[in-house]
């Protein structure tokens, strides 16, 4: 290292060559190395910018909050109940006493459920109205019951349940605000007590009944029918929610001719669709976006076996054969072109057996013959075996005749399909509710589902969709955070934002008690969350991990950086040393 120092002319005993120097140390080398280091460091932000990837900012905190909120506290809906006692003695019980008693019984029935998600909130109030000939007493603030409205209705005569249902609907119908579930108890002289639940949101009990029995029945109808949908437990399992991730369902109706050499059947599906199916699709609108397809297939035998039974005079297949009935090799059912990748397809099959197996009946384990000849498989669809009338004829015709299923038969088939569709959604296909305090008849609606059933489905679907949305968004945020070098496109960010907005809207709708709007917005929330999660750009195999990036760039920069840093340090050390020497000499000179 060349140091510019004066050669001493004489050996000065005070001048220590090692620890002193006479001139100030030069700064050139230090500034040079510092300049190199500084320019190196100046380039660092440019390097980082060039390897930066675009990640749309996702609201991780909000997603976590929302998903934990959904999982911890179940979503409960406010429900309003009303009981009307007609022709009862107002002096025996007051309206308040009756209300408290009904609420106590309801709490007893609801305790078995322990507040499953999607049921009614626990603090319900039941408003009671006592309507007798003289006057109308009620508790509660909002009295919507028209007093004496049922006086004209002569209960002694035999009336159609449908007419009474329509009449009560016109009385109870108030479109303003929340929906109220009503049970009307009418004391008549008939010995037999009948309980009927209508197509809308009311039910009635008629007969010679006393208050205690009435209260028991009312509470049971409120909890097990209106809240839980006709079942003991309120929660519908996942396998009875046949909803696609994009909120769409495709109903595929198939008519299968097992052996066209015997007969060929066709159907007028257009007619069925226009008259019978469209009200059902309309009813399901808040729950799902339903589309319908149909086809007729030939040469489609089933793959299970049946045996001839002399006593029943038909071919019999039992419930043990049901899992093997569908012959997937020959039944090409999944030919839908309209269904998108995330939609759910439900298959409804009419199976017309061949002459070798005709008539074909289903025998139940208790030995009886099934009245519907049909069964469902959850998340797949339903099958009905229809025996043609040509079956009983003995003729062997060379060229098989083409027949069309009559509209009466089509209607009957459609009734079975309707029952199966209800079963696929978790409701029952028959019209009875059997409870602890007796049997109630559930009236059937032309829309396939009664209003109160649609309410139950809306609540359950809102709950299910929100939970799915929460878990999907949670998985998405975990995935995104675990891969720091994966590009997150703007689409995904927007979908997450809209999904969170829809989820918040659902919660506010649910708190207001608007069931169908909350089902609609929960479906939207889930749809957006699933679209964001299944975005095709988020494949971890396509992106470098952080170690990979480090391993690629470090051989270029680390060795150079190391040497530059060391050079700076060495120069700094030298400068400090030399200036210490200089100051020592300076001090000595002074």
């Amino acid at each position, binding site marked *: 290292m060349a140091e510019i120092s004066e050669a001493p002319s004489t050996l000065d005993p005070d001048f220590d060559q090692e620890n002193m120097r006479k001139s100030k140390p030069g700064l050139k080398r230090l500034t040079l190395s510092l300049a190199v280091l500084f320019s190196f460091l100046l380039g660092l932000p440019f390097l980082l910018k060039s390897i930066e990837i675009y990640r749309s900012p996702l609201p991780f905190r909000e997603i976590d909050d929302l998903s934990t909120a959904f999982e911890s506290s179940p979503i409960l809906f406010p429900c309003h109940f009303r009981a009307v006692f007609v022709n009862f003695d107002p002096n025996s019980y007051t309206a308040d006493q009756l209300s408290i008693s009904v609420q106590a019984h309801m709490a007893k029935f609801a305790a078995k459920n322990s507040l499953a998600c999607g049921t009614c909130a626990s603090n319900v109030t039941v408003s009671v109205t006592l309507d007798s000939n003289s006057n109308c007493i009620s508790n509660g603030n909002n009295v919507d019951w028209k007093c004496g409205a049922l006086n004209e209705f002569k209960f002694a005569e035999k009336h*159609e*349940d*449908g007419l009474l249902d329509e009449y009560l609907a016109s009385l109870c119908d108030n479109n303003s605000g929340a929906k109220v579930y009503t049970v009307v108890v009418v004391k008549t002289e008939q010995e037999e007590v009948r309980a009927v639940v209508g197509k809308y949101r009311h039910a009635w009990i008629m007969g010679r009944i006393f208050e205690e029995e009435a209260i028991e029945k009312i509470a049971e109808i409120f909890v097990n029918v209106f809240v839980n949908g006709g079942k003991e437990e309120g929660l519908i399992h*996942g*396998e009875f929610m046949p909803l696609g991730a994009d909120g769409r369902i495709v109903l595929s109706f198939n008519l299968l001719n097992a052996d066209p050499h015997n007969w060929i059947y066709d159907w007028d599906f257009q007619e069925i669709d226009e008259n*019978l199916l469209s009200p059902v699709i309309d009813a399901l609108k808040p729950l799902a976006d339903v589309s319908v397809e149909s086809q007729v297939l030939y040469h489609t035998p089933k793959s299970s076996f049946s045996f001839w039974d002399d006593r029943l005079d038909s071919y019999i297949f039992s*419930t*043990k054969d*049901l*899992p*093997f*009935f*569908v012959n*997937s090799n020959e039944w090409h059912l*999944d030919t839908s072109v309209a269904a998108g*990748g995330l939609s759910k397809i439900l298959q409804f099959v009419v199976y017309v057996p061949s002459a070798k197996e005709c008539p074909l009946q289903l025998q139940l384990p208790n030995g*009886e013959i099934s*009245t*519907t000849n*049909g*069964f*469902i*498989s*959850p*998340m*797949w669809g*339903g099958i009905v075996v229809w025996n043609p009338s040509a079956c009983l004829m003995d003729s062997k015709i060379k060229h098989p005749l083409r027949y069309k299923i009559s509209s009466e038969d089509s*209607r009957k088939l459609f*009734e*079975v399909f*309707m*029952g199966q569709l209800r*079963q696929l959604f978790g409701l*029952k*296909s*028959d*019209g009875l509710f059997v409870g602890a305090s007796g049997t109630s*008849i559930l009236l*059937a609606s*032309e829309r*396939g589902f009664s209003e109160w059933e649609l309410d139950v489905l809306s609540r359950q679907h809102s709950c299910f969709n929100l939970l799915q949305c929460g*878990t999907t968004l949670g*998985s998405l945020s975990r995935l995104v955070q*675990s891969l720091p070098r994966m590009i997150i496109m703007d689409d995904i960010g927007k979908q997450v934002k809209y999904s969170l907005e829809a989820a918040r809207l659902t919660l506010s709708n649910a708190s207001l008690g608007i069931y169908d709007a909350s089902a609609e917005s929960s479906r939207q929330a889930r749809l957006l969350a699933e679209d964001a*999660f*299944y975005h*095709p750009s*988020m*494949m*971890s*195999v*396509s992106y470098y991990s*952080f*170690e990979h990036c*480090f391993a690629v760039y470090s051989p270029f920069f680390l060795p150079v950086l190391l040497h530059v*840093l*060391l050079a700076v*340090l*060495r120069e*700094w050390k030298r400068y400090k040393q030399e200036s210490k020497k200089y100051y020592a000499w300076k001090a000595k000179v002074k």
Partner: protein
Amino acid sequence: MDSSFKSTTLISIFLLFFCNAIPSIAFGSSSTATTMHTNNWAVLVCTSRFWFNYRHMANTLSLYRTVKRLGIPDERIILMLADDMACNARNKYPAQVFNNENHRLNLYGDNVEVDYRGYEVTVENFLRVLTGRHETAVPRSKRLLSDEGSHILLYMTGHGGDEFLKFQDSEELQSHDLADAVKQMKEKRRFKELLIMVDTCQASTLFSQLQSPGVLAIGSSMKGENSYSHHLDSDVGVSVVDRFTFYTLAFFERLNMYDNASLSSLFNSYNSNLLMSTAYYRTDLYGRLLEEVPVTNFFGSVMETIHTDSPYRAFSVKYSKSKAEISLDQSDEVEQRRLKISDVPQELIDSNITDKHATCPVTRIWNAILGRIEMMKELDSLVNYGLILMFLIVTGSSWFSS
């Protein structure tokens, strides 16, 4: 001076740790116990191409035929093949693929629906099938449309090695990629139970990184072992089937749709002397006992069926009151097949690996080092420490050398 040295060290440590991606190990809890088993899916993947890998395509096609015969429909099978055997110029029997030298069965005969063929069989497409992240235009037949009640059979065959599987001679599927895909599937509830069968060399290393519950995996050989082909067909000129798949098929040829043999009988049917390797399976992530699980839970078609009690009579004018007399024990018949065998479970790991032939001291020391490294769990932190040490050594040496 010392402080600057320390700061350099700190900066380097910080740099190194900063560049470590911290994997997230949290996965959502899912209640598989309450979901009903609704359908079965099969994903069959053959990862080899070229004529000398005939046996891998024959393996996959044989398994395809088996699961179809036992009832899984084409719409629930995803078949990924390179599909260059049947019409290969070197094939003496054009449009025919055999898995036995007696040529009794033509696997390519009729009704073979290949979903991903040729160069579409890539690691990316395979992972897209598993995770479900397809482009919007991909048709339904190429998607795995399973739901939370599905049982999925995943069969992979080809050339593999320690923690990887080779795809079409150009890329690799790592075991941690597979584990990651399965984890994402579990979080999204795309399966209820998953059975992974791998027929490659060192097959059981491929599923060593799995951690999701509900997964059962069996591989044809353990780490360090090869899987062998069964026999050479001198007429066709190549080996036509692998041993593991051959014995699997031998087991299934005895079954039909109605049988209820259990998975433990399948797993116990593998004889390591005949296979010339050890068929290793892991059940630690799988909740149920293997004796109680019928093979048709994965290989056949199950449909849970419920009888429809009555039609929904809404579409006629009159409501009849006679419906009240419907007998009430017709409701909710659920058909399930269960098998209860009270056998004691048997493990298949019966090979004891002892180094009988490591007489040379260098080899012995090397094996000891390897064994010690195998046992260490935190390999990542060891690598990090090594890197820091290296950096420090370089820094120190260049400092002191000047």
